[in-house]
């Protein structure tokens, strides 16, 4: 069968004898590529009975040759042809590769866009909640994906303004331990502010994010009157009730000043220990009795009990707040364990208090404490099998060390998200 295609032939060498032998076997006359010029081109010499020998490559090209004869010649023992193949059509490889690569990239990009779309849908809250208070930014909320969902936080304070619009869909329960005053009124505002920091979310007024554990269950224990005072017995009642209900985090932004050298109350030491045994963590404010730098005062009761986590306040420069108490009575317990933002803290407030604003900026270790309480809820969501002591240790271990600040004043440092 006549084949009109070209064939590429490889000779064992480019010696004259090999070329002559091939010409003879194939009954063909080779023109050397050395004889080609602009006037004599390769296609001019190829044709019936004529081939081209590519001198520099040791290859020959023949056209319109019988395949069967080529086969028979190459099987002879003295044959100088070591290989041949039919001329093939080659496409512009680079362009095809480029198109193929572009297709792959488009597919990859499409997949990445799909992943990004899914990520945004999944993390919509995190993406839109970047307008944080300075306190939330300082504890690292911008990198957080936990909400405290399913964790019960009990706020022992002046109560809570239950009609606050930011909390209308929240799971909130409460009880008053102050005679004649309801838990859901909060004519003081302090409790609503602390609750907002620990477990609120975003201000409906200016879209600012001020709450840490935005999906935690909120329990309110009114232990301080609308004038802001309470008693040991009311606090003990409330803690007992809270432990009975299995609340995991108890936040107490309250205190009673102690003297230098005064020992912690054995009552609260026992309460804190019993709470830990029942897998609940009590977090309390270190107190605001200091006038720094000249007059630091010791950590207040009940925060000075070793079994209760004590929280100091930091200002926006991440330095201990002027009023924040320190570990002056360290030999009797009374240490600061950790610190959190406590100056110019923006949060929810009660319409029944003061000028009736729904939001307020306040300062105090009272404001630092709920930051840590909210974080504890996030930690518990992240590590549900950890004990209360385990959560305490993790909070301390992950706290950010503060340069030029004393352990006595800031404890293990600024509490941080997981």
């Amino acid at each position, binding site marked *: 069968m006549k084949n009109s295609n070209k064939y590429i032939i490889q000779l064992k060498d480019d010696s004259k004898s090999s070329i002559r032998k091939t010409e003879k076997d194939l009954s063909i006359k080779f023109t050397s590529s050395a004889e080609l010029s602009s006037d004599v081109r390769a296609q001019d010499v190829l044709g019936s009975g004529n081939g081209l020998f590519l001198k520099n490559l040791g290859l020959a090209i023949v056209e319109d040759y019988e395949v069967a004869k080529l086969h028979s010649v190459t099987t002879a023992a003295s044959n100088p042809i070591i290989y041949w193949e039919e001329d093939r059509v080659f496409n512009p490889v680079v362009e095809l590769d480029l198109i193929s690569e572009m297709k792959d990239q488009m597919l990859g990009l499409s997949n990445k866009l799909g992943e990004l779309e899914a990520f945004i849908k999944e993390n919509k809250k995190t993406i839109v909640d970047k307008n944080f208070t300075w306190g939330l930014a300082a504890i690292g909320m911008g990198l957080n994906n936990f909400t405290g969902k399913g964790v019960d936080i009990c706020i022992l304070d*002046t109560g809570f303004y239950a009609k606050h619009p930011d909390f209308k869909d929240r799971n909130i329960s409460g009880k008053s331990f102050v005679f004649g005053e309801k838990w859901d009124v909060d004519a*003081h505002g*302090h409790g609503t502010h602390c609750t907002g920091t620990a477990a609120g979310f975003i201000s409906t007024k200016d879209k600012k994010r001020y709450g840490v554990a935005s999906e935690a269950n909120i329990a309110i224990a009114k*232990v*301080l009157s609308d004038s*802001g*005072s*309470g*008693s*040991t*017995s009311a*606090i*003990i*009642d409330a*803690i*007992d009730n809270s*432990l*009975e209900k299995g609340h995991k985090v108890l936040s107490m*932004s*309250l*205190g*009673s000043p102690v003297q230098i050298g005064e020992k912690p*109350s*054995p*009552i609260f030491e*026992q*309460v804190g220990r*019993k709470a830990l045994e*029942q897998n609940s963590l009590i977090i309390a404010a270190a107190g605001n009795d200091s006038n720094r730098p000249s007059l630091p005062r010791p950590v207040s*009761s009940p925060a000075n009990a070793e079994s209760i986590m004590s929280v100091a306040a930091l200002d926006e420069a991440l330095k201990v707040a002027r009023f924040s108490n320190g570990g002056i009575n360290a030999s009797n317990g009374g240490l600061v364990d950790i610190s959190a933002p406590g100056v110019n803290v923006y949060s929810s407030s009660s319409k029944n208090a003061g000028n009736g604003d729904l939001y307020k900026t306040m300062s*105090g270790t*009272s404001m630092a404490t709920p930051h840590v309480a909210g974080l504890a809820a996030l930690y518990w969501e992240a590590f549900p099998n950890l004990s209360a002591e385990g959560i305490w240790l993790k909070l301390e271990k992950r706290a950010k060390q503060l340069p030029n600040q004393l352990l006595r004043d800031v404890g293990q440092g600024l509490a941080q998200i997981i």
Partner: protein
Amino acid sequence: MKIYMATLKENVVLNAHILNYFASMGFTVINYHPNLKILKLQADKTLTEMSLKYILSIEEDKSFNL
């Protein structure tokens, strides 16, 4: 009349005998938190006037503020 908070010793069970003892000392038990082993007591006496058995510590109910 004063209000006191006291921690009960770990191995003590608050039974009628113990309640009678506190009463004989001029203390009325007005609340008990078994979960915490803490008693709330009421008395006319001051702490310097006497000592009580069955308790680890006792302190007067005090005020807490913001």
